[in-house]
């Protein structure tokens, strides 16, 4: 143990380490293309639903779900926002994938409810209206959800 290291120097060093950890936490997110892809897919499915081809809509929905599942294992952890780094698993919140899936299920429910309401109101394209509205919510609230997760993680940082 260095005899000449003061308490304030040690505090300063620990503060620097905590700052660097927060810089890595700031990188926890989904890639931008993930939210845009979801929003585009949402609107695409809404358009298909209003075309009144149930089998085609079902097939494309299944394909969309499969495509999402294939990328989800890589992006939903929030550890690979960019190609600049891979955040360590014990730094990220292990509940992020469940949180995002829960958010998406909520959005699916919101889409169905909105479409039913729009249909009952006599709208000509209820599914498109509902999907566009929810796609906008996904685009804004998805990143906001991740920002909230990052704030919580950064708040807990102690070197």
């Amino acid at each position: 143990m260095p005899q000449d290291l003061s308490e304030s120097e040690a505090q300063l060093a620990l503060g620097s380490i905590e700052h660097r950890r927060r810089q890595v936490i700031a990188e926890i997110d989904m890639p931008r293309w993930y939210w845009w892809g979801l929003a585009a897919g949402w609107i695409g499915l809404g358009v298909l639903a209003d075309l009144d081809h149930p089998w085609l809509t079902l097939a494309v929905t299944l394909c969309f779900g499969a495509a999402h599942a294939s990328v989800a294992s890589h992006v939903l952890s929030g550890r690979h926002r960019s190609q600049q780094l891979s955040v360590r698993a014990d730094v990220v919140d292990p509940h992020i994938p469940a949180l995002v899936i829960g958010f998406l299920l909520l959005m699916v429910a919101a889409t169905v409810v909105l479409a039913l309401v729009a249909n009952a109101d006599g709208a000509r394209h209820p599914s498109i209206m509902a999907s566009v509205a929810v796609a906008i919510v996904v685009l804004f609230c998805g990143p906001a959800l991740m920002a909230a997760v990052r704030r919580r993680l950064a708040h807990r940082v102690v070197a």
Partner: protein
Amino acid sequence: MTAPARFDELIHPATRLSIVGLLASADWTDFAFVRDRLGLSDSALSKQFATLEDAGYIVIERPVSNRRRRVRVRLTDAGAKAFEGHVAALRAVIASAERAAAKR
């Protein structure tokens, strides 16, 4: 962190502490990520990396992705252990100062 407290002279200087602090929270980082966060020049950062690599604390890899050669850096097990020991040593300094203050 549960490593035994061991002050590490190599890690302690501010720049290297920052570098290792970043690397400790990541599986790997790109050279540019560290450079941009620390605001260092390429040559200054390369020198610090060389020192840490010589000590066996980091590994520098050069994978090719999208036809571009990248430089990735990651902490080795020895580097992670040294960092944990250093953090424990810093905490011990603070704890002993607090104990001394409480006795007064």
